[in-house]
């Protein structure tokens, strides 16, 4: 039976909760209201994570008293806009979502972003429950510059996995492949062009297609440059092996027209139930389990990219949150960054299927595991992929040019060109660009 006194006490506690949270705890000198009245601008790339941030923005404003203006821009427009604004010395935003796989070195070498290590160490600036140790080591490494600066906080590593059609595999009596060689063999067995069935689909469009090659290269434990990012390793036997695998899959086992496919066309092909396997980012899972857009809702499987001859890796592409070095409201901006990368927000990103957050604790939170709409196989795939994640693109300044030059080489292999010749030609063409870029920076 509830007594009046306990009811009053409970009500008082409920009313006082925001104040208690805003002061964090009595022992901490951290105060969420420290920058009350400040206004900051946030520049986001258009993706489901940004939707989550904007959905909860009012909560941040209520918690901190900081008002926020935020906008989402498609990533291909956001990157040059951000670069040009930051180069001008007075960007229109204080916080930015950064695609580290594209902009890490450019932004880092130009010192356009604020090093956040001092904020993290400072108990007056960082909430005691923020818990930096909770971030995955791979994502933290990706967010750290070569000179040790950590100029952004990892938000979401997009992991590349294999989506597979269990019904097609079952019809052919095939298990999910245990190795990359088996994957190619299965793709051939599943392909029946007379019935319009294909073993594999992936990106053929230049630039977008690079991870469909580097994912296989990672199976050889091979990367596209040396660790310093000064020498290309794109014409090695391992790189050629990866390109040959790309060619076989795309030329012999993929639907017609896949030379021009990006993720969208690959996804629509796979979701119609006529394709056995699709290699792409786990962030594209949601439409596959939506009956309105997918015919494979009950047949789709999620799997870690199988092991190659020397290693098993999942190519990853990390988005992060950063403060612009030119911002005059860095304190308030840091509050937004730590809120955006908090356990609560990352938990919400996971539970809504908006991404695969960089924090490890969310994957073992029983409540989130239970509410995750993709099921245990998906969650298991994400956890295992995170454990073997590796960068899917080189950490160099001219990474977009790299993607175009080698993307065209890969596209040419689909029309029958020799992978070794194409890679050697592209390597010879791109090494001077890389040299020039390294000389400048």
């Amino acid at each position, binding site marked *: 039976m509830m007594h009046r006194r306990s009811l009053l006490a409970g009500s008082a506690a409920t009313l006082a909760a925001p104040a208690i949270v805003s002061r964090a705890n009595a022992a901490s000198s951290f105060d969420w209201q420290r920058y009350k009245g400040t206004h900051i601008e946030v520049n986001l790339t258009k993706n489901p994570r940004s939707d989550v941030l904007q959905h909860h923005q009012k909560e941040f404003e209520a918690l901190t008293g900081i008002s926020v203006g935020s906008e989402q821009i498609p990533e291909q427009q956001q990157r040059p806009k951000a670069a040009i604004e930051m180069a001008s010395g007075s960007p229109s935003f204080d916080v930015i979502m950064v695609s580290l796989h594209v902009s890490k070195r450019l932004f880092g070498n130009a010192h356009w972003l604020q090093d956040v290590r001092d904020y993290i160490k400072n108990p007056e600036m960082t909430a005691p429950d923020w818990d930096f140790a909770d971030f995955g080591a791979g994502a933290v490494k990706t967010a750290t510059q070569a000179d040790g600066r950590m100029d952004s906080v990892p938000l979401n590593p997009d992991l590349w996995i294999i989506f597979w059609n269990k019904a097609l595999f079952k019809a052919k009596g095939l298990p999910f492949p245990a190795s990359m060689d088996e994957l190619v063999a299965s793709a051939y067995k599943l392909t029946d062009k007379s019935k319009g069935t294909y073993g594999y689909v992936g990106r053929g469009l*230049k630039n977008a297609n690079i991870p469909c090659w580097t994912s296989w290269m990672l199976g050889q434990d091979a990367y596209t440059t040396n660790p310093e990012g000064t020498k290309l390793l794109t014409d090695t036997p391992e790189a050629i092996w990866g390109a040959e695998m790309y060619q076989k899959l795309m030329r012999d086992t993929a639907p*017609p027209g896949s*030379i021009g496919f990006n993720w969208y066309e690959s996804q629509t092909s796979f979701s119609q139930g006529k394709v056995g396997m699709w290699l792409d980012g786990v962030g594209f899972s949601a439409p596959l389990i939506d009956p309105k857009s997918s015919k494979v809702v009950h047949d789709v499987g999620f799997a870690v990219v199988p092991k190659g001859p020397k290693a098993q890796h999942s190519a990853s592409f990390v988005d992060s949150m950063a403060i612009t070095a030119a911002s005059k409201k860095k304190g308030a901006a840091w509050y937004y960054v730590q809120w955006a990368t908090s356990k609560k927000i990352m938990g919400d990103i996971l539970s809504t299927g908006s991404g695969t957050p960089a924090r490890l604790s969310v994957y073992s939170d029983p409540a989130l595991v239970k509410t995750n709409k993709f099921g245990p196989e998906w969650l298991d795939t994400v956890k295992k992929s995170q454990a073997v994640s590796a960068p899917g693109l080189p950490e160099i300044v001219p990474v*977009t040019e790299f993607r175009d030059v080698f993307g065209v080489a890969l596209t040419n292999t689909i029309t029958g060109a020799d992978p070794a010749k194409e890679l050697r030609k592209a390597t010879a063409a791109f090494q001077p660009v890389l040299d020039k870029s390294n000389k400048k920076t």
Partner: protein
Amino acid sequence: MLPPARAGGGYARRYGLFSVPAAVVVLAVIVLPWAFTLAMSLADWSPTGGTSWVGLANYRHLFTDPEFGWAVLRTFYFTAIGVIAPLVLGLIAALCFNQRFPLRGAARTVFILPMMATPVAIALVWSMMFHPQLGVLNYLLTSIGLPPAAWTYSETTVIPTLAMIETWQWTPLVMLILLGGLAALPGDPYEAARIDGANAWNCFRHITLPLLWPHIVVAAVLRTIDALKSFDIIYVITQGGPGTASETMNIYLYQQAFAYYHLGFASAVTLVFFVVIVAVTLVMLGLRQRSLAL
């Protein structure tokens, strides 16, 4: 007030100040950006700093880069289809809409709808229709017994397919220009020709076409400038692919400036591109003058 011719230099002195606002605007929004672009084209300009003057090196690189040469050829290929097809179809449509028939006004309105559509939106719709397996276009082809086409997903068909969208969107503009021309044509020559026994084809060949020619040239000039500048539809649908098969000068320029940040080099491309457009336009306007003189 004295007319200008009689006022002489005094007129200019008295009223010259009135042109200052216009001159300032022209200087600020036209001359200065061009001057800045010219200066950038002579430098190796990097967004991370460290700008250095390189003289004509960007231009030398431009004319020795095979990718640029291919981009120019693709641009002219795309432009040729994107000008000729709308001109032919627009002329036919104008001749049709110049006749009286029921619901002509409604039909004209429907015909010009593509011109009013947002390019990026229609590009997205077309890209869905082009999907080799799931697109409605291949469904229609196969349902009448024809083989499916690769549309924008093949290096050989991508440019004609993109030009087809350009044609679909801009034929109405040509039609409107030529319809205006047709409405202004005098009736007497037709009457005389019919008395002399001329048939419809003879009337079209020897009266309509010569009299309409100045309007056709105007439409061709506008279409040529537009097609040369075409960017949005190509970028949204193919981003220059497959490979570089649809990488026109605009896509090449965009890549150099905003993907690779080669801003000095991209400025050189911009200036060369500008010269190309001006040269083509002058040639076409010269043709128009000659046709008027005949």
